[in-house]
C-alpha cells in the first residue's frame, strides 16, 4: 500500500514537472504576451496541481493532505485572475498582439474609448 502510493506520487510528480516544463517552453516559443499567458496559466497551474496532489498522497498526514488541497484550490482561484490582469494591463498600456493574430474584435472598442 505504502509502495503503491509512492509509485503513484512519483508518477504524478513527473507528470507535474512535465507540464511545468512545457509551460516554460511555451513562454519561450510563443510569439506575444497574450499567447504566452495561455501556456503560463494553464499548463503551469495543472503542473503545480499534480505536484501538490502527489504531496497529499505521499504525506500520510491529514493536516498536510488538507493543506495541499487548499493549495490547489487557491492556485486555481488566483492563477486566472493574475493572467487576466497581466493581459488586460498590457493591452491597455498599448502592447499590440503579434502580427500573426487573425482577428481582433477589441481593437475597434479600444480605439473608441481612448
Amino acid at each position: 500500500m505504502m509502495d503503491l502510493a509512492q509509485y503513484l506520487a512519483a508518477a504524478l510528480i513527473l507528470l507535474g514537472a512535465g507540464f511545468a516544463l512545457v509551460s516554460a517552453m511555451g513562454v519561450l516559443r510563443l510569439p506575444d504576451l497574450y499567447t504566452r499567458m495561455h501556456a503560463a496559466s494553464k499548463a503551469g497551474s495543472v503542473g503545480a496541481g499534480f505536484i501538490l496532489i502527489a504531496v497529499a498522497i505521499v504525506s500520510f498526514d491529514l493536516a498536510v493532505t488538507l493543506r495541499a488541497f487548499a493549495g490547489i484550490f487557491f492556485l486555481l482561484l488566483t492563477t486566472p485572475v493574475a493572467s487576466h490582469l497581466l493581459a488586460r494591463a498590457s493591452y491597455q498600456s498599448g502592447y499590440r498582439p503579434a502580427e500573426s493574430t487573425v482577428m481582433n474584435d477589441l481593437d475597434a472598442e479600444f480605439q473608441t474609448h481612448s
Partner: protein
Amino acid sequence: MSLLLLTFLLSFIWALITGTFTLLNLLLGAVIGVAAMYLLRSSLPKPKAPSQIRRILSLLLLFLYELMLSAIRVARIVLDPQLKKNLRPAIVAVPLDVKRDAEIMLLANMITLTPGTLSLDVSEDKKTLFVHVLTLDSKEAVVADIKNGFEAKIREIYEDDLGN
C-alpha cells in the same frame, strides 16, 4: 442554520491553514469566522438550496475536466515543431447573457483556465467579454462553446436566486 454551517466551515478552514486540529484552535477559528461574517454581513450571499449545491458540484466537475483538456491542448500546441504555422491567435468578442458581477467573474475565470481561451477584458456596459483565443477555427464556434458550456451552467446556479 446555514450561518452555523458557515461558521463550522470557516473554523475548519482556519484549522486547515494553521495546521493544528485542536479544540482550542477550532474555537479560535470559529471566533474569527463569526467576526469576519459580522464585518461582511451585508454582502453575504443568500443560503443555497440543496439542488443548487448539486449544480455547483457539476460545474466544478466540468471545470476540472476542461482544465485537464486545456493543459493537454496547450502542451501539444507548444511542443508542435510547426508552431508558428498552426497558431491562429485572435481576440473574439463574446456577448454576455449573465448580468451580475459575480457571474461574470466566475465565467471569466473559468474561460481563462479552459482550452485555448483567455479572458482579456469586459466592455464597460458589461455586455461583452473579450476573449483571446490561441487557435481560432471560427468565431461562431468559440462563442457557441462558451455559451453552451460554462455560461449555461452558471446561469442554472443563479436562476434559483432570482426566483426567491
